């Protein structure tokens, strides 16, 4: 009786032997123990302790012997040297451990030769100096404090806009330096500057219209003459061309480099545009937040990001569940909306054509000066208004087309960038068309670009002070009025602002050949834009809840910049290669000179071997092998990338299978252990219990087909 009671008691107490004996929860306890003994975990721990072990063993012996005496597994020779000169701070141990390591190193130093110790101390010193210099350079970047404030209050996306703006300022400064070196310098020394005085017909209006005084000044193409620098291969026109090409080429390299670097950051093993929730969880919180308001804001950002992710998940679920009639109706709707977009674009282009024709055909003297000013500025005004209103209409349209939020933003962005670049291109085409037979058309082009650039800046200024600020005052003073309700809270729309920047930079690139001082104007206006936008953001705007992800959008910004640069290069190329514009009537090429004349002269003076090489390089016989080589190189890169991708997938599968093998074996081991323990006590019940559960005695990896 007593024994039965004891048996019953034992049965009740040892729960594991009766139920859940094979569930993973009860196996946890055993698993951690045996996991500790696995070779892979041991190797991991070994990596982290390797430095301290090395240092301990090296301190105990002297000379080169310690290398042989280390018997902790399969350590390679190379990293040992690095480990003993690796900075102490980078070691993963508490400070006392680092202190001991340091003392050991100090003792060791007396054992090595004079040159070794000198080299070591020099490398430590150089590292410290480099670190300090790096820190000083970082501190020199302007506007760091502003960027930090904006990041804290509005998030990474708005900060990315301002970082992009700062980058453009630097780019323009570089252009200014190049222009002063290649173009302004030679002209200052060798050119004639006789007509820089105020004439009889000049007025202040010239600064806005680009005529009169400004027409004769270094701002435009027509000012630069052949000058006295007349060597066959070193003359003013050649330097001018070289300067422009250097600017475009350098810009191309810089923008492509930044696009590629940004793209590499966002490309993650094929998951290119998906939301990475794990980043949001582990890197979402900014540890440097110190006040409660920023913390609340950051929390709401993270929450909104996650809600956006959940929304996109539910959207893709909804999308997968669309029935056929729904799909047909949706596609029809989207088709109609695209037609509307195309017709809007067509209407915009016609408006621009009309404005260009009016502006070119008016004569200056028959109107009042203000009317003539407005008429001269009519094309820039039209373009700016079109670029102002149409993107917002595109945004509204895309919200009806039932896309996910990211796709909506991307679609709007694509349409807007097409609008901006195409409107600029169409405008240039119309100007080109209408000034076919006028003298010094380069100055006319330059004037139009100058006016465009000016008006852009004016529009930014007016937008900030005549629209954003009053709207904010309205929200503050009369929050319950109808107007306030209609206008809503002000958000800083990043994509549209970035498009503005890209557009102004494209105008600067297109116009730099005809108006060499445009980068200087660009630098000044960009710096002013920085402060204006800072005012708009910090004083008038509220943080937007749904945000574009910062890191991936910088790729988009630079890609749009690249598109603008390509357009500028194409415009320039078209200008040079169209037959009837080959001869110039003003500018550094002089009367009757042309691009081909000038370069032809220079090439003719080179040694004959160089001439034949150049001739070969520019002929078709070279182009074909060049294209073939490029195709072959590209193919090899693409196929290598694909092979690597396949290898990665296979390795991942192997990893998963071997890990489940490991778990299965541990479970079996735990079961057997438990069985051994329980055979003594509850033999019959345990066996009956175990048998039906033990139907899979085969490891997972061999189960798969």
């Amino acid at each position: 009786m007593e024994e039965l009671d004891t048996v019953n008691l034992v049965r009740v107490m040892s729960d594991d032997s009766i139920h859940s004996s094979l569930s993973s929860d009860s196996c946890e306890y055993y698993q951690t123990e045996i996991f500790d003994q696995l070779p892979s975990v041991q190797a991991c721990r070994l990596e982290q302790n390797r430095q301290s072990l090395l240092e301990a063993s090296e301190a105990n012996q002297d000379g080169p012997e310690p290398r042989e005496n280390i018997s902790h597994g399969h350590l390679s020779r190379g990293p040992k040297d690095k480990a003993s000169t690796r900075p102490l701070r980078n070691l993963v141990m508490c400070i006392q451990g680092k202190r001991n390591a340091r003392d050991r190193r100090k003792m060791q130093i007396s054992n090595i030769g004079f040159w070794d110790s000198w080299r070591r101390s020099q490398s430590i010193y150089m590292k410290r100096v480099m670190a300090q210099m790096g820190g000083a350079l970082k501190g020199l970047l302007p506007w760091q404090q502003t960027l930090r404030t904006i990041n804290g209050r509005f998030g990474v996306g708005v900060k990315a806009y301002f970082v992009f703006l700062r980058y453009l300022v630097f780019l323009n400064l570089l252009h200014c330096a190049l222009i002063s070196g290649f173009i302004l310098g030679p002209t200052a020394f060798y050119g004639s500057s006789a007509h820089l005085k105020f004439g009889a017909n000049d007025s202040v209006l010239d600064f806005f219209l680009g005529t009169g005084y400004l027409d004769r000044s270094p701002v435009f193409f027509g000012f630069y003459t052949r000058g006295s620098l007349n060597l066959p291969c070193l003359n003013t026109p050649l330097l001018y061309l070289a300067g422009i090409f250097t600017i475009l080429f350098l810009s191309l390299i810089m923008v492509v480099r930044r696009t590629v670097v940004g793209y590499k950051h966002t490309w993650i093993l094929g998951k290119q545009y998906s939301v990475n929730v794990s980043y949001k969880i582990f890197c979402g919180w900014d540890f440097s937040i110190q006040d409660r308001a920023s913390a609340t804001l950051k929390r709401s950002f993270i929450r909104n990001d996650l809600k956006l992710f959940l929304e996109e998940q539910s959207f893709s679920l909804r999308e997968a569940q669309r029935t056929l009639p729904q799909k047909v109706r949706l596609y029809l709707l989207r088709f109609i909306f695209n037609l509307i977009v195309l017709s809007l674009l067509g209407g915009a282009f016609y408006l621009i054509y009309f404005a260009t024709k009016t502006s070119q055909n008016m004569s200056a003297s028959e109107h009042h000066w203000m009317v003539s000013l407005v008429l001269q500025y009519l094309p820039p005004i039209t373009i700016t208004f079109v670029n102002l209103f149409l993107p917002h209409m595109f945004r509204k349209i895309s919200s009806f087309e039932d896309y996910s939020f990211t796709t909506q933003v991307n679609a709007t962005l694509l349409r807007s960038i097409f609008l901006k670049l195409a409107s600029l291109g169409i405008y240039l085409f119309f100007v080109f068309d209408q000034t076919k037979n006028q003298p010094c058309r380069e100055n006319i082009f330059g004037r139009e670009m100058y006016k465009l650039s000016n008006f852009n800046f004016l529009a930014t200024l007016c937008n900030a002070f005549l629209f954003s600020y009053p709207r904010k005052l309205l929200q503050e003073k009369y929050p319950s009025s109808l107007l306030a309700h209609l206008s809503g809270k002000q958000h800083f729309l990043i994509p549209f602002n970035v498009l503005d920047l890209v557009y102004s930079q494209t105008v600067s690139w297109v116009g730099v050949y005809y108006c060499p001082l445009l980068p200087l104007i660009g630098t000044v206006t960009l710096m002013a834009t920085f402060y204006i936008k800072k005012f708009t953001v910090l004083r008038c705007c509220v943080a937007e809840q749904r945000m574009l992800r910062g890191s991936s959008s910088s790729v988009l910004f630079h890609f749009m910049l690249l598109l603008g640069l390509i357009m500028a290069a194409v415009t320039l190329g078209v200008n040079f290669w169209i037959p009837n514009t080959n001869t110039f009537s003003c500018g550094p090429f002089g009367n009757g000179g042309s691009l081909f004349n000038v370069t032809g002269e220079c090439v003719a003076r080179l040694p004959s071997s160089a001439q034949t090489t150049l001739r070969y390089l520019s002929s078709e016989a070279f182009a074909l092998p060049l294209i073939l080589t490029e195709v072959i190189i590209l193919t090899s890169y693409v196929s290598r990338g694909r092979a690597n991708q396949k290898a990665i997938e296979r390795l991942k599968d192997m990893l998963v299978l071997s890990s489940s093998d490991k778990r299965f074996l541990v479970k079996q081991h735990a079961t057997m252990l438990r069985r051994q323990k329980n055979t003594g006590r509850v033999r019959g019940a345990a066996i009956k219990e175990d048998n039906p559960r033990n139907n899979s005695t085969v490891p997972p990896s061999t189960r798969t087909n």
Partner: protein
Amino acid sequence: MGNKQTIFTDEQLDAYQDCTFFTRKEILRLHGRYHELAPHLVPMDYTKDPDCKLPLALIVNMPELKENPFRNRIVESFSEDGMGNLSFNEFVDMFSVLSEMAPRELKAIYAFKIYDFNVDNYLCKEDLEKTLNKLTKEELTPEEVELVCQKAIEEADLDGDNKLSFADFENMITRAPDFLSTFHIRI
């Protein structure tokens, strides 16, 4: 040059400079901050290496840590006893790892320790759920939390065991573009 300080010996300051990412001035400033947390507990003279530990509650109220949802875990992972009582060495160590100059590998190791709430060397689902709840202050519903944690584990788990080992975590964090800039406290 400068004031002759008597808090540390020169040798101690050199050791701190080598073992952490701080300069002498910063170490002295850190000692000032440590001292003002508990002026009657912390001695001004550290030349004899006194054994003085400040409790978790005092450290967690520092302005740099006050608004951080993970403040308790941060302090616990740098304390030797795991309870959050920091000596001055551990205090300096903590801010050294969290400073701008610490390398990514070092930060990743400690980030893993911080997010590992049950200290079992794995980031399992419960750890992730606790992290997420601390991040969003419980503003998401439990189903949403579950979904997000499931997706996070799917993204980062390489060996298919439904939890993140240090290798998984490090692999994921090395590709995160803003890890270095967010995991940093300026003191």
